[in-house]
């Protein structure tokens, strides 16, 4: 008579997946609990996941190949589509990589505007994320509030840059334009509302007993996993590892601003939620500081030669910035021609969703898979690009 229980080797149960005793279940790509167009192949025993495989590639467009065929300036509409909810990091990094290779200087006012743009998009992305996180645990109300509020931030973007989602605001050599008249007042109003909303979220979501019961202890990341899995950003800060590129390797005007690295020590989904909740506050405070300190006049763009025939000197560089998900990097190789030789994008979701999620999902209840996945804050389009 066969044993009902799987054999235990080294303290871990070893499941014979070929025995057809276990149910195989797919979550995604057509599934509301998965963050975008990707899928998880789960082997489950009872309610517990015993094996998880991440399948990506549903959104592959071959950007790195397409960029080989396009001039530098033609790449800008493409790069911002790599990460849909937060496209500005891509624009900034592509522009910076070009400026780095060309040795170009940026006017000071453009630096401030770029920082403002990055922080505002961070706010929008986090608002979207917090909606996803609450929705994953069945709290549709908070999701509706935050995602609807994100629209006001998008309105600010629209007035400022002319587009809701894809702004294409940062061009090599500066930014496309200054702030419109009266924009600052409207921005302050939106920020006030956002702080109020965050307080409400703390009451309804973070202090909720059921939310705590489910999120505490879910998908714990320990500090020793950091380097093995390449964990960056809020996922690392949720485990008490204070890593923030804005602080560690300052870029733009971040050294002039007053902020600190928010950390939590538990490393579980709840700690990650709290870290991100704090970072929205931080982001709001940063935007307020930028609006107060920003120079009101000056050039926003350096003079450039004909951008259609812009030749970038040969060289290789890696530039990085802190996105909502962590370290976002561009590795650009130029061979001195009008076309980039190779641009590689390092999206933080790449490691979080592939190697890390596959390991964290083992042993988790299937009801919590969506919550775990959202708490890692992965965006599929930046995995496969």
């Amino acid at each position, binding site marked *: 008579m066969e044993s009902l229980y799987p054999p235990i080797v080294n303290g871990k149960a070893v499941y014979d997946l070929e025995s057809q005793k276990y149910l195989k279940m797919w979550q995604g790509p*057509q599934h509301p609990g998965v963050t975008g167009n990707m899928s998880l192949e789960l082997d489950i025993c009872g309610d517990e996941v015993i094996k998880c495989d991440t399948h990506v590639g549903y959104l*592959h467009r071959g950007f790195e190949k397409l960029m080989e065929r396009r001039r530098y300036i033609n790449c800008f509409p493409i790069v911002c589509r790599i990460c849909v909810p937060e496209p500005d990091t891509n624009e900034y990094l592509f522009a910076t990589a070009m400026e780095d290779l060309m040795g170009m200087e940026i006017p000071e006012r453009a630096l401030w505007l770029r920082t403002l743009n990055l922080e505002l998009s961070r706010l929008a992305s986090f608002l979207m994320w917090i909606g996803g996180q609450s929705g994953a645990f069945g709290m549709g109300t908070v999701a*509706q509030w935050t995602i609807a509020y994100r629209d006001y931030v998008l309105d600010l973007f629209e007035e400022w840059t002319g587009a809701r989602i894809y702004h294409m605001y940062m061009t090599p050599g500066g930014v496309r334009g200054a702030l419109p008249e009266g924009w600052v007042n409207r921005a302050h109003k939106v920020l006030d509302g956002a702080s109020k909303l965050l307080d409400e979220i703390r009451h309804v979501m973070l202090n909720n007993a059921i939310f705590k019961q489910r999120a505490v202890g879910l998908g714990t990341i320990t500090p020793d996993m950091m380097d093995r899995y390449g964990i960056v950003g809020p996922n690392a800060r949720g485990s008490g590892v204070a890593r923030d590129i804005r602080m560690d390797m300052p870029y733009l005007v971040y050294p002039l601003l007053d902020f600190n690295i928010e950390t939590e020590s538990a490393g579980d989904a709840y700690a990650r939620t709290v870290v991100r909740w704090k970072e929205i506050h931080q982001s709001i405070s940063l935007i307020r500081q930028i609006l107060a300190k920003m120079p009101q006049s000056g050039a926003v763009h350096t003079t450039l030669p004909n951008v259609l025939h812009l030749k970038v000197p040969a060289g290789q560089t890696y530039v990085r910035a802190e996105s909502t998900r962590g370290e976002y990097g561009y590795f650009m190789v130029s061979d001195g021609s009008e076309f980039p030789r190779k641009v590689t994008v390092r999206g933080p979701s790449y490691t979080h969703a592939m190697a890390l999620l596959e390991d964290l999902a083992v042993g988790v209840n299937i009801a919590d898979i969506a919550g775990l996945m959202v708490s890692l804050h992965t965006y599929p389009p930046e995995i496969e690009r």
Partner: protein
Amino acid sequence: MIDNEINYDSEPVANAGDNSSNPTTSAYPDWRKDDNTLTNAGLPDEEQEWFCDARPQPARKSWQPIEDFLNWARANSLWILAFGTGCGAIELRPLVTSRYDISRLGMQPRPTPRQANVFMIGGYVSIKTLKRIVRSYEQMQGPKFVVAVCSCAINGGMYWDSYNTVKRIDEYIPVDVYVTGCMPRPEAVLAGFTKLKELIKAGKAEGQNLYAEKFDWYKENQKKVIKDWNMPDYNW
């Protein structure tokens, strides 16, 4: 903004052409010599019995006044399949929240294709997604409608030279309404849905019957680009 004129009568996609005179030194199989052989044409026979093997038939309409009433009901209760196939899906979220709130028009996202009526193609369609789109579309029960959002679904958009995205989604599944833009604003998507409602009420949104009538044409096109055809041919 919204274009409903679809040329359904165009010929099937031209084949790869005769480039076999182009000698290549690569160790990999030459994609130019593709003669429509599939790496995996359908499932093995013993698994086929799990799926329906009847071809789709064009559905008959009922008596016109009843059909008018049914069309009114269909138009006022559109359930969208919650499948974010591309970046256009990010505007689906503002659409269901308070700013635009499609639920006041009787629409709601539905997580299973069996119960959904509207397939919103959100932007570019990669080959891997196309396979899932075809499968989800076939699992939907008719009358079913397709709204193609974003330029990429109409003519490839900015991915016109990408090797992994299809350029015209209407060669693979019938499309009722197109919404152009990259990205289209939520208002544009709403206008698209309103247009779809008008079409349904007028009895013109018969994509399901079109798919059944031109089934072979659609299947041929699908199999031309989906090289890993590891799914049953008919699955309703």
